[in-house]
């Protein structure tokens, strides 16, 4: 298929259909409402399900119900809406139910603003709901990558029987870029007969399946949490993704940045390179599991004097970067979180100040 020019939100919507997901429930919220507006006509066209729920809370449980009945299903929202969905996400993680949640982040806390931000990093990677639960979190840096990550998310959710989140800043949803939907990322939904409540007749069984997160017996609850922990550990072994940029150079500064922010960093790195200053970039594509080993190794390279964490939040990923660097280098944070994206010039000035002061 040839490339088409699409808005990120519409590409996310179309990517889900191309991935083989024909069920969508959502509640409108800026800056991702275009997903629902697109699927309101597109799902009927392909014989799929579209329903606008009465609230994000209700939507998260429509997803829970549909996914627990064995269907491939997804929703999209933005920061305040994800807070409301986090209850349902915790229940799904506890009951081991796969589904895909897309968060096109806006600034916060509270109503915050409607402009792009990366301020839900900690919520997505550490605190999505009560209890010991995690999502597999992927962070796209372009419309193309957003489409591909959405397509990859469904089989990953089914592999782990766990919700997967696509964490994009508002720009990913709002900007238009050429995009194509790789045929090889289309996938068949996995067989869920061993656990889903799809009706005994459907699976030719005479024993009911129960989808639940209540374990009143302490050992049973501990066992369930150990099973979840084992999945999170497996994610760390098998599904860490990141991009290395200019890491073959003798960089003195290592940047860690993701999403739209990482593209600004790349522009700054190219500019600095033309002036003889080498800067490397490690861009996490998965935020959970986090590429901690890769960052540890990149920060230990002989010329690396400093690690710079650049993000559109007040230093949320910073904690993971510091943890990964393990004290081998000073780690500095730079960012903004009001809705405007730091410019290449700001990054360049920052790096120059740092390198010249040494």
């Amino acid at each position, binding site marked *: 298929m040839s490339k088409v020019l699409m808005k990120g939100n519409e590409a996310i919507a179309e990517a889900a259909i191309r991935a083989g997901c024909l069920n969508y429930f959502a509640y409108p919220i800026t800056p991702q409402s275009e997903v629902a507006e697109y699927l309101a006509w597109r799902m009927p066209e392909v014989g799929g399900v579209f329903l606008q729920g009465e609230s994000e809370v209700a939507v998260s449980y429509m997803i829970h*119900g549909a996914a627990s*009945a064995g269907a491939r299903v997804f929703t999209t929202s933005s920061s305040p809406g994800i807070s409301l969905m986090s209850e349902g996400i915790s229940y799904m993680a506890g009951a081991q139910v796969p589904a895909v949640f897309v968060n096109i982040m806006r600034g916060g806390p509270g109503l915050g603003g409607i402009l792009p931000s990366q301020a839900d990093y900690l919520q997505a990677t550490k605190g999505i709901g009560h209890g010991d639960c995690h999502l597999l979190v992927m962070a796209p840096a372009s419309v193309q990558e957003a489409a591909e990550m959405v397509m990859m998310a469904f089989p990953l959710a089914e592999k782990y029987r766990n919700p997967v989140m696509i964490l994009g800043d508002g720009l990913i949803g709002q900007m238009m870029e050429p995009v194509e939907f790789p045929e090889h990322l289309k996938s068949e939904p996995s067989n869920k007969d061993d656990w889903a409540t799809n009706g005994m007749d459907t699976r030719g069984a005479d024993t*009911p399946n129960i989808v639940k997160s*209540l374990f009143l017996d302490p050992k049973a609850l501990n066992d369930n949490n150990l099973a979840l922990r084992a999945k999170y550990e497996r994610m760390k072994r098998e599904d860490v993704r990141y991009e290395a940029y200019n890491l073959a150079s003798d960089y003195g500064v290592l940047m860690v940045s993701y999403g739209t922010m990482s593209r600004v960093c790349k522009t700054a790195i190219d500019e600095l390179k033309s002036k003889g200053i080498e800067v490397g970039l490690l861009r996490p594509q998965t935020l959970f599991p986090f590429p901690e080993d890769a960052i540890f190794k990149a920060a230990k390279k002989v010329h690396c004097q400093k690690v710079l964490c650049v993000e559109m939040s007040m230093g949320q990923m910073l904690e993971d970067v510091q943890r990964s660097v393990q004290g081998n280098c000073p780690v500095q944070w730079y960012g903004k979180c009001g809705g405007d994206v730091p410019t290449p010039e700001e990054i360049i000035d920052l790096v120059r100040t740092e390198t010249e002061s040494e």
Partner: protein
Amino acid sequence: MAKTFQRPRSLKRQQTHYCPGCTHGIVHRLVAETIDELEIRGRTVGLAPVGCAVLMYDYIDVDFQEASHGRAPAMATGIKRVRPDLMVFTYQGDGDLASIGMGEIVHAANRGEKFTTIFINNAVYGMTGGQMAPTTMPDQRTTTSPFGRKSDDVGMPIRVSELLASLATPAFITRQTVIKPKYIKKAKRAIRQAFEYQMENRCFSFVEIVSTCPTNWGMTPVDAIQWTEDTLLPYYVLGDFKTPEDE
């Protein structure tokens, strides 16, 4: 000799955890009988609530999902939209449905979702230990209304069936009770009717059952039945509030 009465196939051979004099067991049986009679056990999915009936999947032998507090109608919506061929029912108490889940039940009913809700109204929170519910009667003492419910402070009890019947979308909305055999027969007919409307893909169907909670009311089972008749039934009037045949 042919058996004329036996344990329904859809009811597990399992002692329940319900208190003496609680009517959950009767309603469970009526639901199980209905599932048997309509021969839908293999394509039924139940939604267990947060509340005393959270372990309902231990008693009713069909696929079950466990909902969080009040969200069962949203989960049932999700199931029914992706699998319209499945028979789906929620089973919810009054704390669950009339308080924290009021938004979900009103919107599911208003969309005309084709599932069935069994609503157990016993005028109190059961599982959490007898706190005041939106359905608690004026002056009724609970652990969070120790001096009796004061309606000038927290309003009057909500009549959910009447509220849902006020929606313009066609539906089957009925209120029944199971405190005496004559009522049980009617309740059984109502539950079966509700499932049949779903089977025909006609409408949302809702059966409220005025129930007892001797433990949290601080009464003997016999006194609880009398109190239901004297205090609850005059306020929660029995009967059909809406059928899909209504214009």
